[in-house]
């Protein structure tokens, strides 16, 4: 409904436009395929989230793609060093649009326990844009799932996020 109000008066009848938009939002938010990548200890929790106990696959997010060309979501799970930063950036650039990034754990958010170290990037948002931050050291698998559901909400209602900013 909100989208419809933002459309100019003359185009209001163009129901199809909004429907396709909604359809794509629905599809994108329901099939986030993460890239198979992990940097350090948080990656273990990420693997755990896909395993039997927490079962990420219930939401359809368990398709970890090995190639960035087929992935939608980059879960930065772990400590990012300056040496690893260029490959990470390249992986992000290799992903096709629309693409999303989740920063998982304190290390990815702002450097975590290593924030003062000369070799650690203090937060991946220095390198690539981040959609959702998940706090914790490490965040529990439930927290990762919650983060992905938050991202789902964000994809469904992009206008809400813009208003907050």
């Amino acid at each position, binding site marked *: 409904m909100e989208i419809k109000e933002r459309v100019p008066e003359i185009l209001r009848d163009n129901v199809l436009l909004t429907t396709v938009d909604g359809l*794509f939002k629905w599809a994108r938010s329901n099939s986030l395929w993460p890239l198979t990548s992990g940097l350090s200890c948080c990656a273990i929790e990420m693997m755990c989230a896909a395993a039997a106990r927490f079962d990420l696959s219930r939401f359809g997010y368990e398709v970890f793609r090995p190639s960035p060309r*087929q992935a939608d979501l980059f879960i930065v799970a772990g400590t990012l060093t300056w040496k690893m930063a260029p490959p990470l950036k390249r992986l992000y650039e290799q992903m*096709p649009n629309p693409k999303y990034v989740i920063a998982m754990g304190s290390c990815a958010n702002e450097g975590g326990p290593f924030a003062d170290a000369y070799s650690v990037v203090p937060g991946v948002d220095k390198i690539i844009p981040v959609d959702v931050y998940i706090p914790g050291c490490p965040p529990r698998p439930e927290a990762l799932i919650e983060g992905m559901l938050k991202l789902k909400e964000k994809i469904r209602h992009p206008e809400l996020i813009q208003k907050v900013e």
Partner: protein
Amino acid sequence: MQGGLLVILTDKLFYGINYLSGNEFISQLIMVIVQIMAIFAVISLAAIIQVYMERRICGFIQDRLGPNRVGPWGLLQTVADMIKLMGKEDIIPVKAQRILWGITPMLLFIPAALIYAVFPFDDGAVFVDLNVGIFFVMAVMSQSVLMFLLGGFASENKYSFMGAMRAVAQMLSSEIPMAFAVLAVVMVSGSLKMTDIVAAQSNMWFIAVEPLAFIIFTISILMEINRTPFDLVEGESEIIAGPFTEYSGMRWALFFLAEYANLLSAAILTVTLFLGGWHGPVLPGILWFLIKVFLVIFLFMWIRWTYPRTRIDQMMALSWKVLLPLALFNIAATGIGIYIYNWM
């Protein structure tokens, strides 16, 4: 001519169109188009069902639930995936050989769809009943390796090229034991025609007559369609995604679709050659056919989620050193068996 449910329905449709158009030629033309469209509809629908099946079965085997949030029981999960893939950016690598790279996913679809022309789905329901049916199947099936090679070569990517070369090696070595296993079936039925092979199984399925050939055939068809334990072509832990590494969005979805079309045709082939095709008591032929096909697909998925991936040398050794001699032995044994049977 007597026919199953499918034939009766097709005839009804034909009379309907004929009544409306009033011209025999035009209505036959429309029927051909309808049949071709039916193949594509079956392939796409089956792919969506199979992907859902695969993810649920994988979930159950690993003591998980699998997708169950999108739509009732998660039934719309694959639909969402497909729509999402349509909306993805289409990246063409700068160094890729654009034309070859672009047409490969479409070319791969041709053998995958062409093969459905000779499958008997029901009593009399076969698009073209070639007298070299099974030979045609083997010939067309081996074409898909060319597309893998083309895609991997045109991507100009190390991993793609390595995957493509693996695909060639793997399909060559799987095809030969498979052909010899099929030869034993052809010897027993005495015909290369698919309908004759099915008709020969009206009393006794060939799985009972040729159990060794069935096992060899199942293993080598798993190699042929690149399914775990033989999915070395896209072995994720070694070569990213093999020939598909550079493909994104809709192009990759076509590869994906062709893969599942091949899985379905492999199951249909198994059912036709060894499990009596559409034969079965009480229920109509097409239903029996579907039940058997989906049981075989379930078997393939069960195998996939139970065994780890083999190494390429293990796979080659298995097919050249174990399956091929066994298949040759099976042919000799079948020949002697037929001789004794005729002599008695």
